[in-house]
């Protein structure tokens, strides 16, 4: 063992086949799932499901969930849970609604305020978890109810007794910032493609798909950004480290608490983004917004390869997990199956994903 030891292969290590290497990627399960679900619907569903209009149709709910799921996935990799995401959607939706309707603020003020507000609530969540040392599961479960309740009470206060706050569309319609958060993007491109005949049109010549819903773009941008942060920045390494082993990470100089609180704030901001998009789309906000989304987001993250124990997973996985979700929830309407099979399907997918992830983890760590 001299200073310049020659590079010799260990004779006990077999060379790894490509497939085994692929098996070690956390997002593999979700990708395989997308393929399986696609095949399933390609056989059973009406052929219109995979036209451009059909794809937009299932990508829209996938994107709305996916934005939450990517936040949830990062937080899970960082070793924590947030069960209050769904309630956070309602709560920040209420705040946003009050900003634009009651206070008549322009979007350029209302949107940043909503994000700051959400980040503060996320920060409170995170600080309680960090300082008390309690499991985030129980702390955020409390916030699931607190925020949902506050949304109800707040809505009644803002509207004088109703649990729905209307009139958002009227005030934001002509705001220059609105196109970034509502409606469809690339309308001109799609109109041109309709004219040239690349995409289907209605009889009057208007394209059947007027553009890409903005949430899909947000969803893609966020998936790419999150993947970049995770795999190619020091912050990404800190997230993996904080989730993998908190003590080991902080002994190595990783600011674990700061990482975790930031992740809680990020998750809350993801919820706020979904709230802003959906509230502007619907033109109103109500207390049931985001109901049970926390579970769906966590399921999408787990299907995407995140371990419940933290330290392992991927944002791209959550991206595909959400697409599976969207395909199933919308796809069933294109088939002859009863739509309520959806829940069975979702639970089944979750179970398979967890078993699969467990096996992958053992493979990666070389446990026997």
């Amino acid at each position, binding site marked *: *063992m001299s*200073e*310049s*030891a020659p*590079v*010799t*292969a*260990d004779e006990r*290590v077999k060379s*790894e086949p490509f497939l085994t290497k692929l098996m070690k990627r956390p997002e593999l399960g979700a990708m395989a799932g997308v393929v399986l679900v696609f095949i399933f619907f390609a056989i059973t569903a009406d052929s219109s499901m995979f036209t451009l209009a059909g794809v937009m149709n299932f990508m829209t709910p996938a994107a709305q969930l996916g934005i939450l799921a990517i936040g949830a996935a990062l937080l899970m990799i960082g070793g924590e849970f947030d069960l209050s995401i769904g309630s956070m959607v309602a709560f920040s939706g209420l705040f946003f609604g009050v900003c634009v309707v009651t206070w008549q603020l322009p979007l350029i003020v209302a949107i940043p305020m909503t994000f700051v507000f959400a980040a503060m609530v996320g920060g409170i969540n995170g600080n309680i978890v960090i300082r008390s040392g309690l499991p985030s599961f129980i702390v955020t479960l409390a916030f699931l109810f607190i925020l949902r309740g506050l949304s109800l009470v707040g809505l009644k206060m803002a509207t004088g007794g109703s649990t729905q706050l209307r009139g958002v569309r009227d005030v934001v319609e002509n705001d220059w910032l609105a196109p970034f958060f509502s409606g469809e993007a690339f309308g001109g491109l799609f109109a041109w493609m309709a004219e040239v005949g690349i995409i289907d049109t209605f009889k009057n010549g208007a394209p059947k798909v007027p553009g890409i819903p903005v949430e899909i773009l947000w969803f893609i941008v966020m998936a790419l950004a999150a993947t*970049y942060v995770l*795999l*190619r*920045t*020091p912050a*990404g*390494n*800190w997230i*993996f*480290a904080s989730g*993998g*082993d908190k*003590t*080991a*990470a*902080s*002994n*190595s*100089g*990783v600011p674990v608490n700061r990482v975790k609180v930031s992740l809680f704030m990020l998750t809350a901001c993801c919820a706020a983004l979904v709230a802003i998009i959906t509230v502007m789309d619907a033109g109103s906000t109500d207390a049931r917004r985001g109901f049970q989304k926390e579970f769906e987001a966590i399921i999408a993250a787990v299907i995407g390869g995140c*371990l419940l124990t933290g*330290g*392992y997973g991927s944002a791209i996985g959550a991206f595909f997990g959400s697409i599976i979700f969207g395909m199933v929830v919308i796809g069933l309407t294109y088939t002859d199956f009863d739509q309520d099979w959806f829940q069975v399907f979702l639970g089944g997918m979750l179970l398979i994903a967890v078993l699969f992830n467990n096996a992958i*983890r053992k493979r*990666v*760590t*070389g*446990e026997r």
Partner: protein
Amino acid sequence: MSDDTKFHHGDTANDLAPIVQMKDIEKHFGNIIALAGVSFDVKPGECHCLLGDNGAGKSTFIKTMSGVHKPTKGEIYFEGKPLHFDTPRDAMEAGIATVFQDLAMIPLMSVTRNFFMGREPTKGKSLFKRFDVEQANDVCMEEMRKMGINLRGPDQAVGTLSGGERQTVAIARAVYFGAKILILDEPTSALGVRQTSNVLATIDRVRNQGIGVVFISHNVRHALAVGDRFTVLNRGKTLGTATRGEITPEELQDLMAGGQEMAQLEGSLGGTV
């Protein structure tokens, strides 16, 4: 004492000034006195063994040294200047690296990611500042090769390494990041014979680079194999420091166990402990 030819011992550099000097350190946890006046110093290029039985205060002492605990009383001098560390990070930046028993390794993460955890090399500016994965991988493979470990690849998960290999990754990491003092908390306690000798050889290699090694152990034989000086802790106090060659394994053993009882026990066990 048997003549040990396996390891090269650097000259016990008595004339060199200590890197770290700790004087009369006391540490109280509530009404528990964990350390009641411990003095200790480490010189460059020596391996100073800190011996003691369970509960002697070894862990508390090294945690004080590495900035995890603040001493209740006593002074710490670093390169001649009085100093105190507020966080482990301060100590690390000053050049005191600790390899804890749990190794601060994350099994699910790759060797490279573990190696650079908390100190990732970056390239690019401001918004485009990113983790330089290629450089990290190259450095990690090279450093591990120097320590005599050939990785399958830089993305190999630490969970797949053996105990000795993990220990070596942790030591290589500390050395690479410019440790002047390397504290090893019972590095050999859970290892097999061959892995133990690998780790001891690594300690020797590190010492020859001029790094001061603090080797915590309760195994006299492992300590004698590489140690230049030996300090024994018992019930939160130092029982004195001996230089290599001045003390026999039996004497060390007795000191660690607190004398008489052990002598009797050893008699009945036929001197096998």
